[in-house]
């Protein structure tokens, strides 16, 4: 056993030291596995960033009410009488002024995207002081809050990153109406930062919504407990309403870019097959290149398993180098990159690519998988190479 280990170490050392002799083929294998890993990580980081942005917006102690079947705030409508009924629902927290509840509107307006200079959908959310307080991560970065009853708005930090013309102090025209930007806010990077906020009553008025709203958020007495509310809604035929925790709502919305992760996995797996073919070529060349060496070692008493281990280790080293290089590439190119796309509510969601550690682990696994398969068969050949024929080949 001991001699197996020491033999293996010796062979591994020789293999690695002889790498410069096969510089181009070895580089080819490193680059091929690096590119596969970069691609996989780019897509995974994109899907992850999007998911985190939406998930981070949802809170477990807030119940969210939408018209049944509407699936997104944009499609929902709730009447004033329904809002009144919800205010009396059980399980909703109260403070001095009454139930902690925010009626909100969600209309879409145009913003000019910096990257393309074309109009894109941005949500203008009608909310209230209570609504703002319900967002725990809310922080005013610049300026002040909008005054109730005015056409003032505050702008999310994400909007400023991706769109032109929403800077503090600017006057914005949506159709006939003029709005003033009086503040910039952050919500810790989540999707609310991709929104414009103002007083919901003003929006009701300017967008002919009468007294209707689109969604209701209510603080729960006990986090996650919406059973009583569900029961209450079920027993009242006037309430054709779906209720779920805000956390559940946003985690469902966050899944809408999962197809990117799937697409990335499929395309990088196919590409891994291509890289595998290249890597096998490299490793077979390596075995052929060292055939004399291997034969010599076998003649002086090295075991064939040490030849096997040596080749396998060489291949794993190359692919691991490729994997690290690929992860580094993905990190430099994509991590933290800010972009925006259409989310589930038909509006732009500004988010950043997020290359977290577990994703890098996934990338390394793929690289080592390539190394293992592309090392195994050539290593098998190296181990079984008949000593005599190895000497005969020049």
């Amino acid at each position, binding site marked *: 056993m001991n001699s197996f280990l020491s033999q293996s170490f010796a062979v591994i050392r020789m293999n690695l030291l002889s790498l410069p002799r096969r510089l*181009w*083929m070895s*580089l*080819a*294998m490193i*680059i*091929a596995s690096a*590119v*596969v890993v*970069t*691609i996989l990580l*780019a*897509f995974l980081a*994109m899907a992850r960033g999007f998911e985190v942005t939406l998930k981070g917006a949802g809170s477990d102690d807030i119940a969210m009410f939408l*018209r*049944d*079947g*509407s*699936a*997104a705030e*944009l*499609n929902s*409508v709730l009447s004033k009488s329904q809002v009144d009924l919800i205010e009396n629902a059980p399980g909703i927290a109260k403070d001095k002024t009454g139930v902690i509840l925010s009626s909100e509107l969600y*209309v*879409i*307006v*145009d913003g000019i*995207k910096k*990257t*393309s200079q*074309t*109009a*894109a*959908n941005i949500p203008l959310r009608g909310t209230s002081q209570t609504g703002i307080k319900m967002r725990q991560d809310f922080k005013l970065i610049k300026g002040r809050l909008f005054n109730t009853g005015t056409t003032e708005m505050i702008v999310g930090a994400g909007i400023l990153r991706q769109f032109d013309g929403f800077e503090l102090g600017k006057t914005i025209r*949506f*159709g*006939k109406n003029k709005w003033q930007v009086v503040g910039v806010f952050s919500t810790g990077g989540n999707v609310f930062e991709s929104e414009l906020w103002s007083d919901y009553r003003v929006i009701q008025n300017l*967008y002919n919504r009468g007294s209707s709203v689109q969604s209701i958020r209510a603080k729960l007495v006990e986090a996650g407990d919406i059973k009583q509310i569900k029961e209450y809604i079920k027993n009242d035929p006037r309430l*054709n309403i779906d209720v779920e925790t805000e956390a559940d709502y946003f985690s469902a919305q966050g899944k809408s870019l999962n197809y*990117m992760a799937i*697409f990335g996995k499929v*395309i990088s797996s*196919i*590409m891994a*097959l*291509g*890289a595998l*073919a*290249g890597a*096998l*070529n490299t490793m*077979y*060349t390596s075995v052929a290149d060292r055939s004399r060496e291997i034969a010599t070692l076998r003649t002086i008493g090295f075991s064939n398993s040490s030849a096997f281990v040596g080749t396998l280790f060489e291949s794993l080293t190359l692919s691991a180098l490729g994997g690290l290089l690929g992860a580094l590439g993905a990190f430099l190119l994509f991590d933290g990159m800010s*972009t*925006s*796309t*259409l989310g589930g509510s*038909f509006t*732009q969601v500004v988010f950043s690519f997020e290359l977290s550690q577990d994703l890098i682990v996934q990338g390394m696994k793929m690289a080592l998988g390539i190394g293992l398969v592309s090392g195994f068969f050539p290593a098998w050949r190296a181990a079984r190479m008949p000593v005599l024929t190895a000497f005969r080949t*020049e």
Partner: protein
Amino acid sequence: MTDLFLVYKNLTRKKMRLFLTCFAIFIAFLIFGAVSALKGALDSGVEMSADNRLVVINKINFTQPLPFSYVNKVKALDGVKNVTHANWFGGYYQEPSKQLMTMAVEGATYFKVYDELTIEPENYTNWMKNQTGLLIGERIAEQYGWKVGDKIPISSNIFSHKDGGHTWQFTIQGIFKPLDQKTDTSYVILHYKYFKETQTFGGTSVGWLILTTQSPSLNEQVAKAIDANFVNSAAETKTSTEKAFNKAFIEQIGNIGLIIYGVVFMAFFTILIVVGNTMVLAVRERTKEIAVFKTLGFSSMRIFKMILTESFLLSFIGGLLGMVGAYLVVGGVSKGLAGILPNLLIGPNTWAQAIGYMLLLGFVTGIIPAINALRLNIVSAFSRA
């Protein structure tokens, strides 16, 4: 003849390497073909837009409505040929996740503006007579297996039926087909009037207007006239060509698309570089043999040609197989994805590009060893060993 035989022998001397190299090229072109098809599908809306068609939307955003009166006001403007309008219904079939692109339109003018769509005159007359009638696009008919006469429920995630619930019952009265297969027909249309009468909000607003101009040269003038006409009104408009409108819509998806293509094409070229490297080395191994050929009296030019032929052959075997693979894959999934991504196909442009890249790969990988062989000095080649 003998030359080709020699090329064949050289290619197949190491069967494993031949297979692996071909396979890597195969994968590269498979991905190239499939991703190009995906890109083409996303861009097809822009490509298929009519030259003289304009879209009028609310200036605030296209999800905001316009007053119905705008239809006649726009019709009265100079240079306007036909005007029709549409409302987004937010339709789905059975499950909210099974979205069905549904629009409420004015039947009398819709097909005048979208004149690239055809429908049996008899079916059209029946539809016009039936309030609850529905027309479906050819792609929808294929996807769901629906036929004329079928009764289907369509639900809305926005509107409620005034009789309660969100589901409307429709009878399919006809299937509209495109003149050009690339035109998107993966949607269904219902009567605007019926829609307005049966949904709870009532009102007479329309979603957007679509119009044709007398000639594409009038587009700009007409667009300006329309927007000027409604300036300072409660609902200001933004008029753009159909092409610009579709393009802006695709831009909404954002540079994510760009990132995908960037990353994938980077990968495509990397695989080619890696493979090219292998091919160059494969010829270098044979330096001595080439010296033998020269000694035997093969002309340098003949060897040069043989090596180039070999690299082109390798590139084309792998490349063409990859493109055929992409063709099969795209053909296989295009039906399933017709609802989300119509026009998923490998167009002539993609084929031309692919062949271009195969030529490039064959040339780049063959030319260096071929020139080396051309210049090879017999004596130094033998003495090198």
